[in-house]
């Protein structure tokens, strides 16, 4: 019997949510402290679990299993491997940072906010650790509800938060109910919900039509979450409306749920179908990459811009996945291109979480001061806020894939794999990188930080009476960003600690297909 790392990591936040909910609502400082404290054990345990894991082991670590509903053959079964472990860590890290950051910025309905956020953490971690389809589905939906409320309640009135919240809810639900039917169909043929066991049982092999329907039903659920074009339209609305911490977790973690599901469930359950449909999914990936970047370039709202850049960057992830899947039937052309592409895809998820999470925090920095995200309202801020400029520059460059920072490694690996396996797609996809550099340098860096600083324009948007911290990045904002910057550099310079773990799991996964 292992130490129940995963159960603790998953459910301590839930306990925290209950404690926060039962505390008196008036004591806001105490509430905030308790909430942050309850998110720390999961972070620490996730780090310990990662360090203690056999770094190159291909099988599931820290498995826990208990019968849950015998008549349904449903188990409480959790475990992590190199694909889920970095994502679990990412979740705990971003949640703790978000709660810490929100302790300074959230003033409305404090108790509800922190309780919901902790509940959200349980749901998100649960998806990454669940190895039973029923459990997976339950956690999948548990995360939906708090995020819906976070967007709806704490959104800014001008951003139509209620519309965005219900749109987010409905989009996700459409996908997930379709997925549920597919899961039931799979269970009826295999007799198990065990995610690790189902691939070897060839689900729905005897009924090709149903298999194809199930494949697309599950794909729909994950593609909406990723989000892939054309299912992405909920994302910019949700991001724009969500409070800063909500956007961070939305981009940093919730989008990964879809990506993770594609790797953990869709690919191993239906490798042949995935290969067969890979050209089409590849087109979706390319459109997401290029269209996302183009729309991003057209935005004047800083948050919307970053939201669309997520569509583009998660397209990179999908390209890596498609590259790995498309060539499953042919002998390996060059070295381990498949593994490289898949490693790149997984690392891209981790990096995107760190980088885009950071970008949303940084949008929060300027938004909290000026209450606007209009790029035309800024300009020349590098002189006024040098630290902010520095941090933003670094994060933005990581996002566009500058060598030496995290984004480069994963994008390089995705393209390295894709060039060997699906060269046409890779060549078209490269355009997205160029466009990415364009919107980041031109829109974010130039419009916000460079150019002439106009005192008159600044006076219009900045009211010192409403801001109690320093004009340049305040200490809590620096503390929030520091761990993210650290990982951007670490993964950019020495990705081995992360990549080794990922590689062990992806090679095992590919070998099993």
């Amino acid at each position, binding site marked *: 019997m292992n130490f129940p790392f995963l159960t603790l990591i998953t459910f301590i936040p839930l306990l925290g949510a209950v404690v926060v909910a039962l505390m008196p609502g008036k004591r806001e400082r105490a509430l905030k402290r308790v909430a942050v404290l309850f998110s720390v054990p999961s972070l620490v345990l996730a780090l310990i679990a990662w360090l203690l894991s056999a770094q190159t082991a291909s099988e599931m670590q820290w498995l826990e299993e208990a019968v849950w509903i015998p*008549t349904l053959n449903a188990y409480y079964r959790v475990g992590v491997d190199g694909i889920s472990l970095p994502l679990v860590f990412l979740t705990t890290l971003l949640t703790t940072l978000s709660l810490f950051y929100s302790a300074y910025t959230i003033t409305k309905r404090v108790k509800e906010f922190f309780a919901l956020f902790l509940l959200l953490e349980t749901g998100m971690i649960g998806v990454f650790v669940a190895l039973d389809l029923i459990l997976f589905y339950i956690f999948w939906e548990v995360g939906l509800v708090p995020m819906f409320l976070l967007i709806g309640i704490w959104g800014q009135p001008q951003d139509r938060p209620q519309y965005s919240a219900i749109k987010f809810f409905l989009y996700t639900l459409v996908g997930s109910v379709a997925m549920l039917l597919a899961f*039931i169909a799979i269970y009826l043929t295999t007799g198990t919900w065990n995610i690790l066991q189902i691939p070897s049982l060839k689900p729905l092999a005897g009924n090709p039509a149903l298999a194809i329907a199930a494949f697309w039903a599950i794909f729909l659920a994950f593609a909406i979450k990723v989000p892939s074009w054309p299912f992405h339209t909920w994302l910019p609305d949700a991001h724009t409306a969500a409070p800063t911490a909500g956007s961070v977790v939305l981009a940093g973690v919730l989008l990964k749920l879809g990506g993770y599901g594609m790797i953990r469930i869709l690919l191993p359950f239906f490798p042949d179908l995935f290969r067969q449909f890979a050209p089409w999914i590849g087109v979706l990936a390319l459109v997401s990459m290029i269209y996302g970047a183009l729309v991003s370039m057209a935005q004047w709202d800083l948050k919307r811009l970053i939201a669309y850049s997520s569509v583009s960057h998660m397209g990179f992830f999908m390209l890596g996945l498609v590259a790995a899947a498309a060539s499953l039937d042919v002998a390996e052309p060059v070295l381990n291109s498949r593994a490289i592409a898949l490693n790149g895809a997984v690392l891209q998820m981790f990096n995107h979480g760190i980088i885009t999470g950071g970008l949303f925090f940084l949008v929060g920095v300027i938004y909290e001061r000026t209450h606007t995200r209009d790029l035309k309202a800024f300009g020349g801020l590098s002189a006024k806020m040098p630290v902010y400029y520095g941090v933003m520059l670094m994060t933005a460059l990581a996002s566009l894939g500058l060598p030496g920072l995290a984004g480069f490694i994963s994008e390089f690996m995705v393209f390295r794999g894709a060039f060997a396996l699906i060269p046409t797609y890779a060549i078209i996809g490269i355009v997205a990188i160029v466009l990415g550099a364009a919107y980041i340098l031109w829109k974010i860096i130039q419009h916000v930080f460079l150019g002439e600083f106009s005192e008159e324009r600044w006076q219009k948007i900045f009211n010192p009476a409403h801001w109690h911290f320093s004009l340049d990045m305040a200490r809590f904002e620096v503390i929030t960003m520091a761990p993210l910057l650290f990982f951007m550099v670490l993964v950019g310079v020495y990705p081995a600690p992360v990549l080794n773990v990922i590689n062990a799991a992806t090679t095992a996964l590919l070998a099993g297909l």
Partner: protein
Amino acid sequence: MTLTQLLVLLLPELVLTLTALVVLGLDMIWRDGGRSQRFLLWIALIGSVALIAVTVLIWPLAGTGGLPIAFVTDREFGSDQVPMMALDSLALFFKLFTALVLILVLLASGDYVRARIRFRGEFYALILFGGLAMMLAAAATNLLMIYLSLEFLSITSYLLTGYLREDERSTEGAVKYFIYGATASAVMLYGFSLLYGATGTLDLAGIAAVLMGGVVPVHWLVYPALITVLVGLGFKIALVPFHQWAPDAYEGAPTPVTAFLSVGPKAAGFAVLMRLLLTALPGFQLDWIAVLAGVAIVTMTLGNLVALWQSNVKRLLAYSSIAQAGYMLIGLVALAPEAHSWTTGLNGLLLYLLAYLFTNLGAFAVAIAVENHTGSAQLDAFAGLMRRNPFLAITMFLFLLSLIGIPPTAGFVGKLFVFGAAIQRQMIMLAVVGIVNSVISVYYYYAIMRQMFFGEAVDASPFDEGPGLRVAVGVAAGMVLMMALYAEPFIRLASESVSLLAASF
């Protein structure tokens, strides 16, 4: 069967009858302007709890095969005693179900009744009689008994619906309910007479035996009988197109009565439907499955689509409950012959009913609490509920999630089983219509969520829901979570309750 044996087997019914009579009697004695009248509620509650105890007590008597209960001596046909009801697992399930309905409705009705209803003793007694009628209907194995118990249930329902005599809508609802109901039961009775005429027996198993024997020259009579019987039961369950009475009756009735109507008669209707179709007409399975599949689809779709336009919570929940009955019907349509399977459709139907019991009564309890304090059942009465009473808002949210079918709630388990049955029977279409409807339903449930969490109340002062409602809502919410997180005993109960029915078929 000796009289003592008979009385033991009828203990649950007797307990409820006795309680109702005591409540009526004391109501006549205690005419002191209401001070002792609050004890009437306690007596009714104690009777309902005793019902659970008695049901559990006689549970072992039923054995695996069930016991016939006969109290009519039928000399004309040469047999000694004609079994009217059965004490089997299905009947026991519905006795337990009835007790839970009664407890939750009574708990939720205390404050409401005190504030608005003049004749309290009769009110509680009628609710108890309604419960009695549910139990009788669920246990009946004879067409005559089925008809009598359904009529009994209908008449108590009409009376309760029109209980707010000064309120025009209450009267209107009751009259509509009565006219529709009288017509529907006349039509159903016609169907029963056709069945009797064709087979010469009123006993459900006997009908099946005659029909199976193939000696019936008027076999085709079963088809009109089937349709007319479905009309009657469709009315009780409020299946489209026999649902028109429901929104008006639900809106007009006192809210605790609406809560009762949305669960009680529906459950009784389903119990009778299951028993009648599976015991008496198993040979016509293909026919009634085809009809019911169509009914399920239109019921879900119409209920959900019309609910989108409602601004009154009671009407909204009325249409929602129409749609919910459509999902339940999937369980019956997709019933699976192989009893070893995890979902036989029928167990899904019972699980869904149980989930619906806790969810819907919980939601109505919250609606009653809100109505008690705002005087309104409009959607905007829920505005800012999260600030005014977080307990009610959070539990209501849970109930709405359960009605949608989002885990971890009871509604999810119910949907898992009925949709699972549909997929198992390769009725993919039915399952897809079901989930599309679940998604549509989000939109009107969201109307309540939006008011509670995003809306600002005109009067934002906190209020207390009172002990009775707190217990009712708390128990319902606890069970809604428990059915999802610890589902095993519920699944087992549902599966065992239908095992006999599934085996007979």
